[in-house]
């Protein structure tokens, strides 16, 4: 079961986890990324490349399902304007064994950071700036290359 969603509505983590639990497998892992108020960020705006985003997320989920024999993989990404504390991204996996669920979850969030066409803009007062690429994200994604 693959569930992909790019949405401007709040992410319902309980509903997503419930669906993963019902997918069978017995082991469910999740990662949730929240807007941080680092250095006074007041608003985070997420832009994306429609259709290409969904395709990138679907491809990652399909790769994870195949590589870790998952029962299910879910990737939900918020777009549009958000404030600190709101959920930006939810990644969840269901598998027969805990190591598969946890590793696949780490894979999905690491690779999403470099492979899916999203861009963040932070606003602090009158100052709006686009977030730059992080070397650590590239390194994290690279560790999943085989």
């Amino acid at each position, binding site marked *: 079961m693959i569930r992909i969603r790019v949405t401007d509505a709040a992410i319902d983590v309980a509903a997503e986890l419930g669906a993963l639990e019902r997918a069978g497998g017995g082991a469910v892992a999740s990662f949730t*990324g929240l807007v941080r108020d680092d250095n006074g960020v007041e608003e985070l705006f*997420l*832009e*994306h*490349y429609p*259709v*290409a985003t969904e*395709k990138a997320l679907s491809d990652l989920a399909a790769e994870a399902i195949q590589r870790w024999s998952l029962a299910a993989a879910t990737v939900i*990404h918020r777009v549009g304007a958000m404030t600190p504390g709101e959920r*930006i*991204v939810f990644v969840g996996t269901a598998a027969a064994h805990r190591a598969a669920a946890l590793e696949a979850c780490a894979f999905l*969030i690491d690779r*999403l*950071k*470099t*492979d*899916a*066409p*999203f*861009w*963040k*803009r932070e606003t602090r007062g009158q100052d709006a700036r*686009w*977030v*730059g*690429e*992080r070397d650590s*994200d590239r390194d994290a994604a690279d560790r999943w290359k085989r």
Partner: protein
Amino acid sequence: MAAIDLLYFAWVRESIGIGHERATPPAEIADVAGLIDWLAARGGGYAEALGDKTRLRAAVDQLFVPLDASIAGAREIALFPPVTGG
């Protein structure tokens, strides 16, 4: 060459001032880098957004590609900064 849908995202979109346009590059332009130079030569926001190719990434028909990728037969080309989602 046929008309191509050009898409711009993030600060590339903001500098150019639009997110989407259709354009017909001259036949001698073979790759994404050549397309970027051709667009940058329009000056103004284009030159500002597209002058430094090291800051740019591209997708041809929604597939991420290096800047030396061919644009032959492309219907949609997107230009944008490195992605920062998640």
